[in-house]
């Protein structure tokens, strides 16, 4: 660049420098396909029974530097400042169980937690692995099922399995053995997750749709978009308990609102509410991009 002298030359240099500065500032760190896929798989592998979301909340805090947690357990990050104030949110809790009692020979019985719409929900754990979240960490178990050899012809037209028939076998044979595992009344229990990628670009897991949507929101927030006004990004709890939308969302609105615009991150799914609820990772990536544009657009 040719040096331009004098006052007018100095202002021109400053202007030129400013233009060049704008041109060479690196763009925000956009989420890559690989990073979003990894996030979606990771969130799909986590458990957060309604009312017991603390561990997954810890993970979200670690994944979102600068985020904080409110008294209801919601994880929020505030981007930008001033008006207007907008909210982007997704819920990360799921229906599950807590230990309702321990039998004398060491089995756990259950009480369901969180609203469910699928009348086969309890049958999903019959004869399958579950994880009991005890004081000393996760404890593997299985939900008992009748042996086919001893069924004596029963089962064909029987009604679906219910929570009242569920006995969780953690390998213990007495109440003290259960306690020694750090498991007790109200320990959360959920189906052991086995996220499965299959097909061209699909992810199957319990609640895969909401987890992939949360991953998209997380990726958009981590990209630190240049927002106009304020955008609060919220990962909310207890949406399956209490008021519509859940106690978590209500808390975020009460404490950080009002908001001029609210957007929930959602994705279409197949096989909804089943252990293989399936979401397109391509759709999740598109949602992440769309959320980023929404955050950056002029309101």
């Amino acid at each position: 660049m040719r040096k331009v002298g004098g006052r007018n030359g100095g202002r021109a240099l400053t202007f030129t420098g400013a233009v060049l500065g704008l041109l060479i500032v690196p763009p925000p760190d956009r989420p890559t396909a690989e990073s979003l896929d990894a996030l979606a798989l990771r969130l799909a592998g986590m458990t957060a029974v309604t009312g017991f979301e603390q561990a997954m909340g810890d993970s979200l805090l670690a994944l979102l530097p600068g985020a904080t947690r409110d008294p209801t357990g919601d994880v929020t990050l505030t981007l930008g400042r001033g008006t207007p104030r907008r909210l982007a949110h997704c819920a990360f809790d799921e229906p599950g169980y807590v230990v309702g009692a321990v039998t004398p020979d060491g089995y756990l019985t259950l009480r369901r937690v969180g609203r469910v719409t699928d009348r086969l929900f309890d049958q999903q754990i019959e004869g399958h692995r579950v994880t009991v979240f005890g004081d000393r960490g996760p404890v593997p178990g299985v939900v008992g099922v009748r042996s086919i050899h001893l069924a004596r012809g029963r089962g064909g037209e029987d009604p679906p399995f219910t929570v009242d028939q569920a006995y969780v076998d953690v390998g213990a044979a007495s109440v003290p053995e259960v306690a020694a595992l750090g498991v007790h009344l109200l320990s959360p229990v959920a189906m052991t997750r086995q996220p499965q990628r299959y097909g061209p670009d699909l992810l199957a897991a319990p609640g895969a749709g909401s987890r992939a949507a949360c991953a998209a929101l997380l990726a958009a927030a981590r990209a630190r978009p240049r927002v106009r006004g304020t955008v609060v990004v919220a990962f909310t709890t207890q949406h399956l308990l209490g008021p519509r939308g859940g106690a978590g969302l209500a808390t975020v609105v009460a404490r950080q609102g009002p908001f001029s615009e609210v957007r929930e991150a959602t994705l279409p799914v197949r096989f909804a509410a089943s252990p293989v609820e399936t979401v397109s990772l391509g759709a999740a990536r598109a949602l992440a991009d769309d959320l980023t544009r929404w955050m950056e657009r002029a309101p």
Partner: protein
Amino acid sequence: MMRLLPLGVAVALGATPLRDAAGQDSARIAETQEVLAQLVESYGVSGAEAPVRARVARLLPDWARSETDTAGNLWVRLGSGDPLVVFVAHLDEIGFRVDSVRADGSLALERRGGFFPSLFEGRPALVHTGHGDVPGVFLPRDSSAPLTHAPPPLAASVGTATAAATAALGVAAGQTVTMPKRFVRLAGTRATARSFDDRVGDAALVLAVRHLDRARLRHAVVFLWSVREETGLEGARVAARALGTAPARVHAVDTFVSADAPLETPTFGVARLGEGPVARAVDNSSVTPPAALDTLLAVARARGVPLQVGTTNGGNDGSAFVPFGVVDVPLGWPLRYSHSPAEVVDLRDVANLAALVGAVAEEW
């Protein structure tokens, strides 16, 4: 002769389990787990047992020469002279076979073996193509299906929308389909996995061969890992025809389905986990002669191996030999939740089962 115990009653006999020192006991459990976990995590639906057979062959000691017959059974022959005694455990597991690929790319399935299909509905699936496993899902019933415990006939999807796309993944009719599985330890010495029936039997035979004192063998012994037991004892029938009237005795080493679980009716089959292997004295396909049962009990007692006696349901490979005049003395171990993804065993029972097989081979 020892007084025969009443059938239908499971009783723990013998001295305390082989547990001469805590360190040796944990070493036995560790070896048992090491062998069993590898076998469990191999896939082999009836008719597609090759991966499991290959795993068994790799786990056998180098000196144990094995051969495979035309049916796919794996044989190890040891010792010489009469009487010929056969131990048989089956390699196959329950699952599905792809019956056809539909126009929409989904897979119509045929069941292989007996189990509750509800346990597979809406679960991750693996199609075993022979060139690798292709992941998919067992389709859940749609909302218009009846709300019963049992689902409509199951189908699977590998995420494609056309038959051509499915074929492009290498998926075709005739291949087998199961669910991903993993060996998982529970509290104490308990463990869970799918296909303990009959990978525990396979493991017991491998462990018995590994620890066999060949110098003590007084007669010929055949260790046989059979195919297609779950679909009608098919591999055992081939082996039985090949051996004819030569064997004096056969020991099927297979599951003792136990009623030691809260959902079962405790009228029979109540062999408790952790209290030892089980003489499967009466099942749907055989009755152990009382004199043979007495001898088995004596062998176990002499070796300090705990042994329960009981009656359960199910058939066993040994019954394929009975029409040739061979005495069937089935051996088992207590198993909960049979033919489910959540089968549970006690590893002490597995280790003691292996010890019992070895004792029978050397002493009887």
